[in-house]
């Protein structure tokens, strides 16, 4: 505020003073001017009268040339002190007589023209020139000079009086206006002070009293009206500020939360506490089933909710008007629920909850649910309240949408991570598979002589000691398992199910074999670390016969035994058990194989996941594939895997198979001694060990065996033999050879002699067959390591054109 601005009091007083002074001045001045003019006129008249009188008296003196008399006459002016000078002139214009008062100044004209009569004002005097006549005769002229100092004296006097009067009236006006301005300035000052007080104290409830002056009353009324308006808008502002702060509070609380339930909960609870409301709930809407379900209830609303049947999980009946409108995305406000004949509102009304707001939770045009906020008194919500709830519901809906998106994102992320891991593993596995494939070829090549010689020894050396025969049999079985294992290595990276070749197996035997194979793992290695593992074998008294792929069964048991050993780093008891079980009288008999340990055991999470591929508790030591392989095997055999485990107590894996039906067939027939028809055989291979052993075995059978070291050498030898008319009965060639492989050898042979059978030996043999990849020009594919029985069978089948042709795949190991 401008404090140097004049105060209204001072202004009023100044106005009064200026006005009164102006009026006074005008009045006095006009009076003065009037008086001045009148005075001049009077002076002229006075002088005229005086002059005429003197002139009349002076006629005789003039007429009879009596200057003394004339002077006497003029002396009469002495009684008029303002007549300064006077003179009489003859008709000739000559001065006749003159008079001067004491105060006279200036000269009297010595001559005066008779015609120059009249009055005129000189600088400080009034000069009158009058004719002197007697009867009709002009006798001379009278000159009279009246001193105007009197007039000026009077002016001065007047000015003094005016000044005095103005001063006096100014003082009076000041005193009066000072008293009287109070009536106008004090209400205005009071208003100003009140406005000041209001703005300082922020109290808009005070009102100014009427002053009793029309305009001021209008001002006061306008002021009061304005203060009232400010009060109203201030109250509205406070409410909106409260809402804004509440909204901010809730929004930040929502922002800290991720899951929908806790978001809903914080919204209703905060509303209950801060808005406040008596009942608050959020219901979720499912668009597909068109169901509205209570999702969250405020803490204080629990009892109401229980009475209303609106506890979390309860469905809300969709009535026609209220909720249906709300579900269309519009906020519904019922100021008095008792007046609306809708079931939900009636239920709320029964609990004396009269004001009900139902706000839809809509985000991106999707309805997520409904926010219901109720208060006890009717008409409890103002339009800002409704607006606030509407905004809040938008926020909540947005948060719900966020939470939903977030969870979807999380799921997608988890999926992605899992599939990425799987892909990485598969890639690893694929590389592993390729390596394994090469390794398998080499291993098969390497063990081929072992297999051939072992078989040959068992067959041809009847004098072997029982011990040697037993060792050789174990060697032969181990070689068979090695071949099977190598073959199965491919399964890791192959998507399709491997072909099962089921055979009737006594699990008691398989268990023994598995224990024998894993002896080093449960006996030697732990002992090196000073750990003792006791092995208990509880076998069923009767043969536990099942139909399984023997090698896979053995692998499964081996894996289970490995796991059991790994679970007992401090030592313990490994139990392997077989049982025949008949659960019910008329049920099929089942065979149980159990592998148990007294090791660390597994918690529930581990139990749940232990069968997953790549899941391992062994860190880098484990591939995570052992149990997965067991499970795969179990699934392929339509068997069952049961798991019992207690952390710290140990685990038990139970494999449940259907018992093999019927009676066991007679023991496998003794190897058939085939008819030894000498054949001329061409052997083509690049591996000297294999080719040497094969040559020896076939020579021992009495065949004529020619060896070609490599594909090209094979083709050349075959062509040479054909030219020299010593053709080969059969060609046995390896598949994988450098430069010229088995396929090309076979093609060349068939091109030269289409009737000559070709047998393909392959380290990938099983895969070739399984994939249906028997190359053209090949009559039979034999796996490495070749088994003597198969080889003989193939030679016999292929070289007796009339003989029955057996399918190669039917051969069992």
């Amino acid at each position: 505020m401008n404090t140097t601005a004049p105060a209204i009091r001072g202004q009023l007083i100044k106005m009064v003073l200026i006005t009164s002074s102006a009026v006074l001045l005008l009045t006095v001045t006009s009076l003065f001017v009037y008086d001045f003019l009148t005075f001049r006129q009077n002076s002229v008249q006075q002088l005229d009268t005086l002059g005429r009188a003197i002139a009349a008296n002076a006629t005789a003196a003039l007429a009879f040339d009596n200057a003394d008399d004339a002077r006497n006459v003029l002396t009469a002016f002495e009684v008029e002190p303002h007549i300064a000078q006077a003179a009489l002139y003859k008709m000739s214009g000559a001065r006749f007589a003159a008079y001067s008062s004491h105060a006279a100044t200036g000269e009297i004209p010595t001559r005066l023209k008779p015609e120059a009569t009249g009055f005129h004002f000189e600088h400080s005097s009034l000069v009158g020139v009058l004719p002197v006549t007697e009867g009709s005769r002009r006798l001379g002229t009278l000159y009279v000079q009246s001193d105007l100092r009197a007039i000026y004296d009077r002016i001065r006097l007047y000015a003094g009086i005016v000044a005095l009067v103005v001063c006096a009236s100014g003082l009076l006006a000041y005193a009066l206006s000072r008293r009287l301005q109070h009536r106008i300035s004090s209400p205005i000052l009071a208003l100003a002070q009140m406005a000041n007080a209001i703005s300082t104290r922020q109290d808009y409830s005070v009102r100014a009293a009427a002053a009793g002056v029309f305009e001021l009353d209008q001002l006061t009324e306008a002021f009061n009206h304005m203060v009232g308006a400010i009060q109203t808008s201030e109250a509205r502002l406070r409410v909106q500020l409260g809402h804004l702060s509440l909204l901010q509070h809730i929004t930040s609380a929502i922002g800290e939360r991720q899951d929908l339930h806790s978001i809903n909960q914080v919204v209703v609870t905060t509303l209950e506490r801060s808005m406040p409301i008596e009942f608050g709930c959020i219901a979720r809407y499912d668009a597909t089933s068109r169901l509205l379900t209570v999702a969250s209830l405020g803490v204080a609303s629990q009892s109401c909710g229980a009475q209303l049947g609106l506890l979390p999980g309860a469905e809300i009946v969709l009535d026609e008007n209220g909720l249906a409108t709300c579900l269309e995305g519009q906020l519904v406000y019922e100021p008095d629920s008792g007046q609306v004949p809708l079931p939900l509102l009636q239920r709320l009304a029964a609990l004396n909850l009269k004001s009900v707001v139902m706000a839809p939770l809509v985000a991106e045009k999707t309805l997520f649910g409904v926010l219901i906020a109720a208060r006890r008194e009717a008409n409890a919500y103002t339009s800002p309240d409704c607006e606030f709830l509407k905004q809040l519901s938008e926020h909540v809906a947005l948060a719900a949408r966020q939470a939903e998106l977030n969870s979807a994102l999380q799921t997608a992320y988890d999926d992605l991570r899992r599939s990425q891991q799987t892909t990485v593993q598969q890639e690893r596995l694929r590389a592993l598979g390729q390596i394994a494939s090469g390794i398998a070829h080499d291993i098969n090549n390497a063990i081929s002589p072992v297999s051939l010689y072992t078989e040959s020894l068992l067959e041809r050396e009847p004098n072997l000691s029982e011990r040697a025969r037993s060792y050789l049999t174990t060697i032969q079985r181990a070689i068979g398992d090695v071949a099977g294992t190598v073959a199965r290595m491919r399964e890791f990276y192959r998507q399709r199910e491997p072909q099962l070749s089921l055979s009737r197996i006594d699990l008691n035997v398989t268990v023994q074999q598995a224990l024998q194979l894993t002896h080093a793992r449960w006996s030697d290695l732990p002992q090196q670390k000073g750990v003792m593992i006791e092995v208990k074998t509880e076998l069923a008294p009767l043969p536990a016969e099942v139909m399984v792929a023997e090698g896979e069964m053995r692998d499964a048991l081996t894996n289970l035994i490995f796991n059991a050993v790994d679970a007992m780093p401090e030592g313990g008891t490994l139990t392997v058990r077989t049982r025949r079980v008949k659960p019910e009288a008329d049920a099929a008999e089942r065979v149980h194989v159990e592998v148990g340990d007294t090791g660390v055991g597994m918690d529930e999470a581990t139990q749940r996941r232990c069968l997953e591929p790549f899941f391992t508790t062994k860190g880098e030591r484990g591939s995570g594939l052992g149990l997965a392989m067991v499970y795969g095997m179990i699934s392929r055999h339509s068997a069952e895997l049961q798991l019992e485990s207690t952390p710290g107590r140990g685990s038990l894996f139970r494999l449940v198979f259907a018992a093999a039906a019927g009676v066991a067939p007679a023991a496998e027939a003794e190897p058939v001694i085939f008819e030894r028809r000498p054949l001329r055989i061409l052997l083509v291979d690049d591996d000297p060990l294999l080719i040497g052993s094969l040559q020896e075995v076939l020579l021992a059978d009495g065949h004529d065996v020619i060896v070609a070291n490599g594909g090209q050498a094979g083709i050349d030898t075959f062509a040479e033999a054909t030219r020299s008319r010593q053709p080969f009965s059969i060609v046995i060639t390896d598949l994988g050879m450098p430069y010229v492989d088995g396929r090309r050898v076979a093609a060349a042979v068939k091109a030269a002699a289409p009737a000559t059978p070709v047998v393909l030996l392959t380290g990938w043999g099983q895969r070739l067959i399984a994939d249906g990849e028997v190359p053209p020009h090949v009559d039979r594919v034999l796996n490495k390591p070749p088994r003597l029985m198969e080889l003989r069978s193939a030679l016999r089948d292929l070289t007796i054109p009339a003989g029955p042709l057996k399918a190669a795949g039917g051969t069992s190991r």
Partner: protein
Amino acid sequence: MPKFVRQAGWILALLLSIAARASAPDEYQVEAVFLLHFTQFVEWPVQASDAQTPFVIGVLGRDPFGSALDDAVRGETVKGRPLVVKRFAVAGDLKPCQILFIDRSAVSEADQVIGSLAHSGTLTVSNVEVPAPADVIIRFLNEDRRIRLRINVDYARNAGLTISSKLLRPAQVVGTIPAG
């Protein structure tokens, strides 16, 4: 006003005053004007024939005025009546007139004339003393080259004339002025 103009003015004024003194009117010229002036200060009794007759100034005896009197009255009137000058050489010639100047040449006849004119409403004027007991109503007195008046109010009253007090004031008054 420039100085030389003022000086010139002074010189001119001096010359004019010398000229005026040089041509100062002689006694008779003044007296002629005085005669004319008396018509303004004296009230004559009203007569029925006034309207038809001119106002007559008569000169008895030798006319001392020369042309001065004629000059003075030329064109003048008294209350609408033309003013004429008539000259009477001797008393016998005398005809009625309103003002009669008796020259020193006729002073001997003055007594007779004045006697005959009593109550006639004629203002008798002379510049010499008439032998007593007769007296003119107004006599010119030459005092130090200034003409003064001597008025005999008794005679005036007898003549039925009213003499203005203005005329009486500067004059030497003889006789009794009735009070009131």
